[in-house]
């Protein structure tokens, strides 16, 4: 075997392995998007397999042992068919990505179906041209030397692929901007932002480039992107709480580790708010755990809205305790947030017809330099919470009138 073909096949095999790892991982997650993602993965795997087969066949064609007449004998119909199928997958994958992302973003557009049909016309035309090219030779044809040559409409194929790539990329950007909070969750470091944008762009650039220059860089590109997206997916599943969809404890420790690196001035303007449901055990015991879950979910929705409007970090610390971290604030602001949460929980209780008393205790603590480790900080907030809770249990209104109690360690 020719050594350059050997390396090409090796490259494709690595890509197929990575695709299979991503595929198996995706199959186990059981998300709603499973079918769509799986279809894209299958297409990409088919593309790889076609690449290997055409490599192998063109290696056979270019061998010294075959004369010109032999080339014509050795399945040249099959060869052209496989080659045009390979070109077709190059068109198909950007179209599939465009199709899936379009269904996501176009919920609000009235004439959604009609537009989709209109935008699909070039795809249908080009797929007809590509698939029929073994007979007609519009896109590709095989010379007597066993070489594949571009046909008349080849530039159309490249153009259409580019067209769908641009559309797909625009849709992906739309999805990013519509899910800003989740996006912010993932990209805390600026390098992540660069990575995620390049992962979103790469497959769209690669497909036309692959068609233009006939270099096999498209499968490695897909492999890199998909693996990166899989790591993000795994990360989200590990560090996001599944009941309330807030950050969980793992994330809190990571966030606090980051905070430890700040300088003195920034640290002292950072506040941690501790939020705890009063008598949650009582609700759980008397009304069942399901009711308790409902309470937690409602509360987390409320807190999420609050955190967004005040631009805070929010996480579920455990059971019925939530932690909010506000940077660049002063005491007044922290008190305001505490009051705001109290008020909105009171409103929530008034609105709901639940038979139980729903209220929360809140307290805040400043991130001074006396806290040497994140553990100290959490412990301090913990102690503070019990203090406030004791006050709250005695007389709830007392807590609202006065500023939250600050503890001394």
């Amino acid at each position, binding site marked *: 075997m020719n*050594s*350059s073909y050997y*390396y*090409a096949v*090796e*490259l494709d*095999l*690595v*890509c197929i*392995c*990575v695709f299979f*790892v991503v595929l*198996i*991982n995706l199959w*186990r997650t059981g998300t709603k998007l499973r079918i769509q993602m799986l279809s894209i993965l299958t297409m990409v795997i088919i593309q790889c397999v076609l690449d290997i087969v055409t490599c192998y066949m063109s290696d056979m064609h270019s061998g010294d042992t075959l004369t010109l007449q032999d080339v014509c004998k050795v399945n040249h119909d099959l060869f052209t068919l496989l080659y045009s199928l390979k070109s077709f997958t190059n068109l198909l994958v950007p179209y599939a990505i465009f199709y899936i992302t379009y269904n996501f973003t176009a919920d609000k557009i009235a004439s959604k179906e009609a537009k989709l049909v209109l935008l699909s016309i070039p795809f249908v035309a080009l797929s007809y041209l590509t698939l029929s090219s073994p007979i007609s030779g519009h896109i590709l044809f095989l010379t007597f030397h066993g070489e594949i040559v571009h046909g008349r409409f080849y530039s159309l194929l490249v153009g259409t692929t580019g067209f769908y790539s641009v559309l797909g990329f625009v849709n992906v950007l739309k999805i990013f901007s519509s899910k800003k909070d989740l996006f912010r969750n993932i990209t805390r470091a600026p390098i992540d932002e660069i990575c995620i944008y390049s992962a979103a762009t790469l497959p769209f650039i690669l497909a036309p480039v692959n068609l233009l220059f006939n*270099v096999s*860089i498209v499968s*490695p590109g897909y*492999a*890199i992107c998909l*693996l*990166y997206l*899989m*790591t*993000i997916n*795994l*990360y989200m*599943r*590990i*560090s996001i709480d*599944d009941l309330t969809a807030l950050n969980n*404890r*793992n994330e809190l*420790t*990571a966030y606090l*580790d980051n905070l430890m690196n700040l300088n003195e001035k920034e640290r002292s303007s950072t506040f941690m708010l501790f939020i705890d449901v009063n008598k949650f*055990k009582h609700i759980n*015991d008397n009304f*069942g*755990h*399901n009711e308790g879950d409902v309470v937690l979910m409602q509360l987390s929705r409320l807190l999420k809205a609050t955190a967004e409007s005040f631009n805070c970090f929010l996480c579920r610390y*455990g*059971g019925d305790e939530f932690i909010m971290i506000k940077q660049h604030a002063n005491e007044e602001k922290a008190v305001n947030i505490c009051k705001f949460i109290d008020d909105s929980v009171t409103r929530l209780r008034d609105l709901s017809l639940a038979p139980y008393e729903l209220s929360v205790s809140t307290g805040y603590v400043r991130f001074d330099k006396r806290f040497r480790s994140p553990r100290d900080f959490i*412990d301090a907030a*913990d102690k503070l919470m*019990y203090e406030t*809770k004791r006050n709250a249990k005695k007389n709830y209104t007392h807590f609202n009138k006065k500023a939250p109690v600050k503890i001394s360690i």
Partner: protein
Amino acid sequence: MTLFFKIEIAFLLFTLVFIVLRAQIKTKTASVKSFSAVCFVLIFLLVLRTCIVLIPYATYVNTHWVLHCINYIMTIIIIYCWLFAALERLEVFSLTESSTARIVLGLPIVPVIVMSAMSPFNNYLFKLNLFGAPVQGQFWFYLYAVVALYMITLLVPTTYRFIKNANPDDQKTALYSYTLTTLICCSLLYTCYRQNNIFVIINTIAVVILYTNFNEAKISTDALTGLNNRNRFRKYLSSVMGSSATVKSNIYLTYIDVDDFKAINDQHGHLMGDVALRTVAESMRDVGKEHHCFLARIGGDEFVIISHHQREEDHLKMLHLLEDYLGEKAAIAFENFSISFSVGSTNLNVPNASANELLKIADKNMYRNKMLKKARREKEKLKNTKMNDEIKQKRNDKEAQ
């Protein structure tokens, strides 16, 4: 064209390893040091091999000798790191955390380093032929011996894990890591025999697979206690619910709850609460060793056991055993105060019951037990308070006098 493909493969592998390494660092887990080491060494190896490809042999002969020396040293070091990464994955912390084990297992590397450093002069380990490709040297077999030693070292804990552990997922993990390491070692021998880059390719794929496997396990286990979490419990329960009535009548669902967990947390701090939860998990694991059980933590202080028994007496025996273990462990862990647990259980063979309803039944049984206990305790408390009141009254009387 060949050069282009070679560099492209190196770039692809480099990026894949880099992505995994970045994700691994981001999740901040302490117990994957060796795995990160593997990633670092692999990245180094990839860069080294690209250098070997790019630098022409004819003009830079000495550079090639040095690069090949480093290449062999790194190859053996990466196998050493893989050994510890596999051990970490199998959670054999007694080996991975002792420095003596690290040193003893690291000793066979020293001759490899010495021999490959001597190779340019004596051709001990390898020599470069006219085209700059390495050929086997005099003591080449030593490399085989080291690899075989590592394989045997790994085989022992893997077999032990495989036989001892009833959990099919753990068995799968053991099998996984062993197969991967075997593949890596075989590919090393093949690569050294015929010049190609199968070794780095297999390494990269192994890194990706091990990373996903590790994170999958992390998703379905509870971080604090190491038991299965709610997700896995739901899956397992629904899979068990699908079996026939005769099978189901042999399966029991047990619900365990720590009494006044909130009070422990409030009075003694969250750390003490965590210790209490771990105590429950440990005693559950001890029970699991003697019976065929599925253990899970499904909420703050709620634990669940799904167990298979032939007779009902066995189930009752298991419950007694559990209570004994819990009592023992709690007595050791807590000196200042006592904790107690409530247990409720149900047979899985309840006609027309969904998974949620079954949980509710077990929950109810548990609450009944809890209430009984509370009533008993309150009686005692009343007695105590009466006694206290009497003492106080006596004291008051004394003061009045």
